[in-house]
């Protein structure tokens, strides 16, 4: 129990540090976004001081002492108020993010989990049948495909299945003619559009999961307790799952949590190539349009989701491994 309390305390502390850094860093940069925009407008004609003030107000530029800014910032944060997006003006940053988040969470999140589960199970099977046909083919093939560059695979899939065969759409998250709604037609369209991005994420990820699990499992299979389990005449399935895979999984959980944490950042390259309306695409738009409020909010989302994923990994590891839970030194 102490383990879980300690980990929760650590999570709260790290989130606070991340939030504070997110406040401090932009303020260390010279100039401010209003001035940058002003410079842009100034090229088209002179700007009156009144216009300048109006712009600053509209963008919600901070006023007052640093201390009061910090408290305002925390207050806004708690209320989900990240200001107005420049590039999606006049939408608020939080509504822009809330529109993009489900796309990424559902597509990238689900496929990341699926890829991990499938890869790990294949890894268990490959390690158990080490050196046999499945192991030698699947392991080599999947480590080959996992080395494909993300964007290259995405482009290749678009070219073959979107452009030449025309089986799947080449970009977007849904048919632009449809209004986003919870009906069969829209969901069908979204699924249809997600096939190629999903394949991209799956293929580039599954090999890593397989290799990681396979190699860990082969190490575990050499342990004395596996030999003893064989001597005990336990069923192969029991030995493979309860004795070998269970232990081989421990170091992998942390890696998996990291990749889950990065889901919120979106698969930047994948979403850019497919013009998929998720967080990665949003991040790219924000960067290229110097949309500071949006960028700041996105970074905060990514940081916090990584922290949460690590927290989840700690908790799951604690549940799986009694040695961590009791705080014992290994």
């Amino acid at each position, binding site marked *: 129990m102490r383990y879980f309390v300690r980990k929760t305390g650590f999570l709260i502390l790290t989130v606070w540090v991340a939030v504070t850094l997110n406040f401090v860093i932009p303020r260390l940069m010279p100039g401010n976004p209003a001035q940058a925009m002003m410079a842009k407008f100034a090229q088209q004609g002179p700007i009156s001081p009144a216009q300048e003030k109006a712009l600053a107000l509209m963008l919600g530029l901070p006023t007052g002492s640093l201390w009061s800014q910090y408290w305002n910032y925390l207050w806004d944060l708690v209320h989900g108020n990240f200001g107005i997006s420049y590039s999606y003006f006049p939408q608020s940053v939080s509504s822009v993010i809330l529109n993009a988040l489900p796309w990424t969470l559902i597509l990238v999140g689900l496929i990341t989990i699926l890829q991990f589960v499938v890869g790990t199970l294949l890894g268990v099977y490959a390690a158990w049948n080490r050196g046999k046909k499945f192991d030698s083919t699947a392991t080599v093939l999947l480590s080959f495909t996992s080395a494909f560059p993300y964007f290259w695979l995405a482009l290749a899939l678009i070219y073959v299945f979107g452009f030449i065969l025309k089986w799947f759409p080449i970009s977007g998250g849904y048919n632009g003619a449809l209004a986003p709604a919870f009906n069969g037609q829209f969901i069908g369209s979204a699924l249809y559009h997600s096939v190629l991005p999903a394949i991209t994420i799956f293929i580039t990820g599954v090999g890593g999961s397989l290799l990681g699990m396979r190699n860990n499992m082969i190490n575990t299979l050499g342990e*004395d*307790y596996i030999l003893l*389990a064989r*001597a005990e*005449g*336990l069923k192969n399935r029991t030995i493979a799952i309860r004795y070998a895979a*269970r*232990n081989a999984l421990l170091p992998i959980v942390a890696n998996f949590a990291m990749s889950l944490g990065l889901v919120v950042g979106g698969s930047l390259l994948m979403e850019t190539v497919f013009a998929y309306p998720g967080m990665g695409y949003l991040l790219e738009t924000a960067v290229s349009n110097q949309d500071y409020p949006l960028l700041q909010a996105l970074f905060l989302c990514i940081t916090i989701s990584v922290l949460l994923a690590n927290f989840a990994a700690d908790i799951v590891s604690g549940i799986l491994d009694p*040695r961590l839970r009791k705080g014992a030194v290994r």
Partner: protein
Amino acid sequence: MLQVKDLWVTYKSRRSAGVAAVRGVQFDIPDNTFVGLVGESGCGKSTLGFAIAGLLDPKRNNVQGEVMLDGQDLRKLPSEQMRALRWSKLSVVLQGGMNAFNPVLKIKHQFMDVMREHSNMSKAEMTERIAELLSAVDLDPSVMESYPHELSGGMKQRAAIALSLVLKPRLVILDEPTTALDAVVQRSIVTMLSDLQRELGFSVLFVSHDLGLVLEVAQRVMVMYAGQIVEDKPASMLMEQAEHPYTQALLGCYANPRAEHVSLSGIPGSPPDLRAVLRGCPFAPRCAKKMDICAVETPRLVKREEGSVLCHLYAPKEVTVR
């Protein structure tokens, strides 16, 4: 009960003919007997133990010969039947016991896994049996609720012995069970083991490099050298009148604490390379009583009044008649 006939184990190798770690071993273990198997590192004693228990990986080893347990040849048994027989007839205790338990499962669940596999005991019966066995190895029954990392090395080894007895096997093979422990703990575990053996009446094959320890607890001792059993005798006899020069030399390595003048002697040289095909007696280069024949002819097992010895010194003379 256990009869081993002409057992050979060769570790496969891509580059050479392989390492013949066990060479034509032959012996039997009757019911209710504590047998020690001693030899120096690399003599094949653990390999022999694992070969009997059927734990060698057929991909890496080539095992030949017969291992008869109660009239069944374990080597010819279909794997499913062999699996069913494991632990209920034949169990093992591994070296040191440090890693012999699955680190993520409580001790009791590891006991229950094997009991559930081979019996129809209810949960309450299993718990009762676990408590009974833990007490038998001088552990507190509450140990069953612990995880392996919460136990000391000695406690783990005791728990491993308890685990090996959980289904009342006929034969327990112990591979260097006390090697990683200090002399005091070693002593108490071995004494406890021999008490249990007499009390419960199972047979033990105790593999160890410590001749002194084995002589104290075993009823019979087999001495192994270069993959062969060179001498097989009741423990009391071996101590008094060892016949094989290797056994005599081994005994010379121990000091009698009561003697006024302690004279210790080592054995010069080192064991032969088991990759090679051995010609003559493998011990000959290190033997103090070497004869001409030892370098050319491989000795045959000679039956003695009690036990047997593998040495030309004791070969019946008439055999040389051609």
